[in-house]
């Protein structure tokens, strides 16, 4: 009920797909969707259970997005998104939404990546969407980006 689902298919073996998703996270993540005060230089998922998911700004400051709940290469990753209404990391697990990413081999050089973002209701318990988008720094640009992409797609 409170979950979102998405998927992508990439032309990589499953282990490479997992490594690319996690190890090169900052290289492919749309840079507009960041929450730090300065522009995003990189975004990192630390490769271990309990690791941090965070961004590093061009000014060197770091800003947490969540934590690694499950680190099971090459098939499964679970991270939390736990940002409060003041656009700060909220350590209260009761306010943490979870993102599970599954990597399934579809062929020797093809991997299906399925993503579920669940427990969104926990975010609503900690902040309103108005807080999140209204104070969301660079994230407000997301809708403009979508609008442009939508226009480009005709």
């Amino acid at each position, binding site marked *: *009920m*409170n*979950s*979102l*689902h*998405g*998927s*992508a*298919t*990439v*032309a*990589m*073996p499953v*282990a*490479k*797909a997992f490594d*690319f*998703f996690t190890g*090169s996270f900052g*290289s*492919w*993540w*749309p840079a507009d*969707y960041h929450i730090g005060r300065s522009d995003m230089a990189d975004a990192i998922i630390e490769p271990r259970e309990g690791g941090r998911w965070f961004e590093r700004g061009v000014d060197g400051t770091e800003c947490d997005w969540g934590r690694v709940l499950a680190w099971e290469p090459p098939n499964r990753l679970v991270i939390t998104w736990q940002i409060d209404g003041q656009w700060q990391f909220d350590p209260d697990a009761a306010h943490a939404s979870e993102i599970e990413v599954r990597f399934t081999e579809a062929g*020797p*050089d093809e991997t299906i*990546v399925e*993503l579920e*973002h669940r427990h*969104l*209701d926990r*975010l*609503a318990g900690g*902040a*309103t*969407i*108005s807080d*999140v*988008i*209204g104070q969301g720094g660079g994230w*407000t640009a*997301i*809708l403009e*980006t*979508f*609008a442009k*992409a*939508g*226009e480009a797609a005709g």
Partner: protein
Amino acid sequence: MATFGGVDFGILGDPTRRAIFELLARQPLSVGDLADRLPITRQAVSQHLRVLKDGGLVIVTPDGTRRIYRLNPDGVAAYQAYFQRVWDDALAAFQKAADAAPIDEREHS
């Protein structure tokens, strides 16, 4: 068109509705306020607001003779719609970057 938990994510597939959604995220506004900020008529604003309201993304409260629109403070539907857009875009970016990765990144190690 995908639906999740009864929420139709086509709601934010329209650029004008996304613009209204974002404006209301910043502050509650009336139809007239929105029409002043967007290159569309009050009638068009009202039509988009009706879709957003029916989808559970916004609520309306009376303020004297005006009706003020704001994002639904219960927020789950709005979060769902918002993050659906995030993940659609992020996964598309991931797939594109993976396809563009150097061949040695893609082959068996």
